[in-house]
């Protein structure tokens, strides 16, 4: 950068790097939550910008629901290997075997149970800070959450007992047993993420781009057919041209109909879309007005 042109992406990037370096400097044993989704891929590039030429001063951690799209898991493994960084994967299956998670219905979303395995992983490794790629524009509970968000021993978020966050002087102190979730890209929007993916030429799972896929229509949602979601006798399987705006649990992540095959086309579509990211794609967030807020209070990201 030779001239003094400092774009909004430059401003957001510098803020995120500053946050990551504060975590590295002040927390004893941090981790970076990495799923292979687009937001966590942006987080990985920001970590490279923050710490290269050294290795990351923390491992990457993924809490695998085993309900993930195979393309996303492949991308997760490839990116971690290419960067030469340590990736820790803990699966909900482990918690199920231990009996700490009891699944009643295999075809139901597993997001509510992720918190259990996350807390077990935090305890196993003694992490005092977990960085995640959540954004405040995603959802109204997140809009009110701090960048450094404190959790008690049960991993609970207490929205009415948050520390004031002034300037960018972050209070990172915790007592033993407590931990912090840190959201370095809090101030980024979906549009910023796509513009950054374009600018940085980031490799993301191909299911973010338009492709043909077998889907069924159920309750106003387009649902991808997979080994977990099979059509009921009354439902018709059709082939649609779709892309995913978010990639989560296969049973509750709906694609949107789209022909956008490049990042530029997605940016154009994002600029004109009239539905929010989670409104369009996350069936678990549609169940109640406060569903994200409730999950966060139970220790979710």
């Amino acid at each position, binding site marked *: 950068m*030779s001239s*003094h*042109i*400092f*774009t*909004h992406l*430059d*401003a*957001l990037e*510098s*803020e995120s*790097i*500053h946050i990551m*370096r*504060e975590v*590295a*400097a002040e927390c004893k044993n941090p981790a970076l939550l990495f799923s292979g989704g687009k937001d966590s891929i942006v987080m990985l590039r920001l970590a*490279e*910008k*923050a*710490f290269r*030429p*050294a*290795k990351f001063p923390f491992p990457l951690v993924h809490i695998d629901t085993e309900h993930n799209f195979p393309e996303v898991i492949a991308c997760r493994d490839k990116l971690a290997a290419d960067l030469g960084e340590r990736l820790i994967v803990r699966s909900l299956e482990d918690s199920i075997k231990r009996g700490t998670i009891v699944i009643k219905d295999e075809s139901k979303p597993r997001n509510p149970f992720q918190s259990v395995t996350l807390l077990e992983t935090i305890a196993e490794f003694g992490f005092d800070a977990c960085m995640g790629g959540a954004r*405040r*524009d995603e959802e*109204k*509970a997140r*809009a*009110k959450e701090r960048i450094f968000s404190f959790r008690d021993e049960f991993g609970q978020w207490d*929205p*009415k007992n*948050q*520390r*004031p*966050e*002034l*300037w*960018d*002087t972050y*209070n990172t*102190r*915790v*007592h033993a047993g407590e931990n912090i979730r840190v959201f370095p890209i*809090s*101030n980024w*929007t979906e549009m*910023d993420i796509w*513009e950054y993916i374009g600018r940085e030429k980031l490799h993301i799972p191909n299911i973010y781009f338009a492709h043909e896929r077998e889907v069924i229509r159920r309750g106003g949602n387009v649902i991808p057919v997979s080994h977990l979601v099979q059509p009921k006798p009354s439902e018709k399987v059709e082939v649609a041209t779709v892309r995913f705006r978010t990639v989560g649990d296969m049973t509750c992540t709906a694609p949107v109909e789209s022909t956008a095959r490049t990042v530029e086309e997605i940016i154009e579509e994002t*600029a004109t*879309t*009239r*539905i*929010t990211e989670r*409104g*369009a794609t996350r069936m678990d967030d549609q169940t109640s*007005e*406060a569903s994200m*807020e*409730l999950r966060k209070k139970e220790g979710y990201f």
Partner: protein
Amino acid sequence: MSNTTQLLRFITAGSVDDGKSTLIGRLLHDSKSIFEDQFSAISKTSEKRGMAAVDLSLLTDGLQAEREQGITIDVAYRYFATPKRKFIIGDTPGHEQYTRNMVTAASTANLVIILIDARRGVLVQTRRHTYLASLVGVPHIVLAVNKMDMVDYSQARFDEIVTEYKKFAAQLELHDVTCIPMSALNGDMVVDRGDKLDWYQGPALLELLEEVEIDHDVNTSDFRFPVQWVCRPQTEEHHDFRGFMGRIEAGEVSVGDEVTVLPSGSTTKVKEIVTYDGKLQTAFAPQSVTITLADEIDISRGDMFVKSSNHPPKVEKEFEAMLCWLSETPLDKNRKYLVKHTTRTAKCLFSRLFYRVDVNTLEPHEVDKLNMNDIARVAIKVQQPLVFDSYEIDRATGSFIVIDEATNNTVAAGMIA
């Protein structure tokens, strides 16, 4: 979208009665930043509550925890963009904890919108909001004279309010104040100009938000670089690499510049400015970079690099500040606290409380303890020297937070005098 779109952070100050939520709703709605699923949710709620039109103020409605317990969480952040700029709104509810919330939200803002109900004019709370904006050094102030529809869009009424407000504002050091008449309810002078306020020649609110000059909001002259993290890869490829990572808080620096490392006072030259995207010749605030130096000097997190040719910061163990107490537990003069200033944390003691400011009248009062929302002039002693500027000159190197070690809570915000 052009590549030089800037980011503007602003907050709104005012109570629900002034139409604050309606104003934010109007700004989001008319700039086409509301999505269909959000709009349909508030349409349904408006209908349920028996309203004739969609109530835009519902867009800023709270969480379940807030509704159930009748509390409001201090700051919610909202995002919208126009082709010219990206905006971050820090939305603070107006209630009894207002001082604490507004100071928190204003600490990162470039601009504050102070709302007035045109029928009621300049009130005590208007003075309070304006004082807090000046205390926290928000560079730009907009006085939004709302509900002009309730006073027949009267120019005389607007002029009367502006005259009174400017008289008050002159007592405070406010450099940039713009007064705009508007009706958030009807959408006049928010995004669109409407046809009722033709006598007003200035910018509509969004136009101002898009155009206000924010490049000079940071100190651009004196280089300040607090060291955040020392990078020593110790790999074969980068065996001798020792880089100092941090964010430039003010000014700029070039390869070859002589820098002084504070508090030690050692001097050396900048060898390289390293980023992931390549080496730079010059870097400036607020870039996050890695600096390597010509000489091996003992440097750790908490030290600050300044340019030897620039105006020097102060390096002191004792200083005065304006303090805003944020905690429900009052300040205890006999206790030690922690102060976090840039990247340095040190033990501190409040050696004197000079006076408390009544935020409504601006009058000083004698004080011997500080409660939540109190603002006071204090003297602080720290265990190790801090490297600082006055807050007025540099918000980044003139601000600090106070942490209670027993609870780990952030209990105060300080601005160095």
